[in-house]
């Protein structure tokens, strides 16, 4: 006898209700026009010897290596090292290079600092420009027409929907990245983080904190215990 019961079970012997697969196959649906176009352009570039598949794979890997965790490290460093913070705001490209992060040549970067007087939020009304070389692929909502249009007209309303309620004593500064610069927000370090290590600090810096649609929060002790 063999002991592969699970295997047998998944053949749905005796079942009259087939389960849907846990996850749809990526290529189950017919290709859309843009997918066809991408494949055609990609194969032509390879056939003509302009790019190799290896180079394309390397570019995808490079993009995958960028994520909000990388940005969080930069913020944590700025929080513990005032001189680094100064350099980051003055010349973001050079400061990131100090940490081994090369942002490439597609765009320049600029860091905007939140203060008790000013809260910054980033948007791209014309398309969906985003500091990808630091934070990776943007969230889907960042590219939505609703976020892109409403953030410039009613930033406080949009922020409130993200759970960020700002008093009138704080000026809201929206940055529309219309051109060759990509913006990242340097959030304020919460007071309750005195003595924390850089790793602990980085853990509370989320992607949205660096877009300006969230503030870093310190979990309260009971919540931490509940989260285990």
């Amino acid at each position, binding site marked *: 006898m063999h002991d592969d019961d699970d295997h047998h079970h998944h053949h749905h012997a005796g079942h009259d209700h087939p389960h849907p697969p846990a996850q749809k196959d990526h290529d189950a649906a017919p290709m859309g026009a843009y997918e066809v176009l991408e494949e055609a352009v990609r194969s032509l570039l390879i056939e003509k010897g302009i790019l190799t598949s290896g180079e394309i794979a390397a570019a995808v890997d490079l993009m995958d290596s960028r994520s909000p965790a990388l940005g969080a490290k930069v913020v944590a460093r700025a929080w513990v090292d005032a001189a680094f913070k100064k350099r980051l705001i003055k010349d973001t490209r050079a400061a990131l290079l100090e940490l081994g992060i090369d942002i490439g*040549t597609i765009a*320049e970067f600029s860091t905007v600092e939140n203060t008790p007087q000013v809260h910054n939020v980033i948007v791209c009304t014309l398309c969906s420009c985003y500091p990808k070389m630091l934070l990776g692929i943007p969230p889907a909502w960042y590219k939505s027409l609703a976020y892109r249009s409403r953030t*410039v*007209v009613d930033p406080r309303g949009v922020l409130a929907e993200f759970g960020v309620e700002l008093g*009138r004593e704080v*000026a809201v500064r*929206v940055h529309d990245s219309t051109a*060759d*610069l990509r913006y990242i927000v340097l959030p304020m370090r919460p007071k309750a983080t005195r003595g924390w290590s850089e790793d602990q600090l980085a853990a509370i810096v989320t992607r949205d904190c660096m877009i300006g649609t969230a503030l870093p929060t310190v979990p309260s002790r009971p919540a931490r215990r509940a989260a285990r």
Partner: protein
Amino acid sequence: MVSAAGSFSRPPRFKPGDRVSVPARAALGHCRTPWYVRGKPGVVAAVHGSFRDPERLAYHRPGLPAQVLYKVRFRQLDVWPSYLAGQADHIEVDIYEPWLEPQP
């Protein structure tokens, strides 16, 4: 390659603090000056450097001469007369020099 930030192909026409306005003209084809700031007054907040001209780059041209790019700060109340929230709220937009005029 794009000129690095802070480098200029020719001297910038405006400096930080200058009061400028965006012409209310239309553009044919690709343009990176949003409609909502056309005809609006603002202040130069920073001079970013020279960058290749997107209005030419979009049509497979080299994008030269490079254009000086500015960060322009607009009061929300100037951009949206019905803006209800804080008087000190601003929106900053990166705008190329051909799209800026000195404020009279």
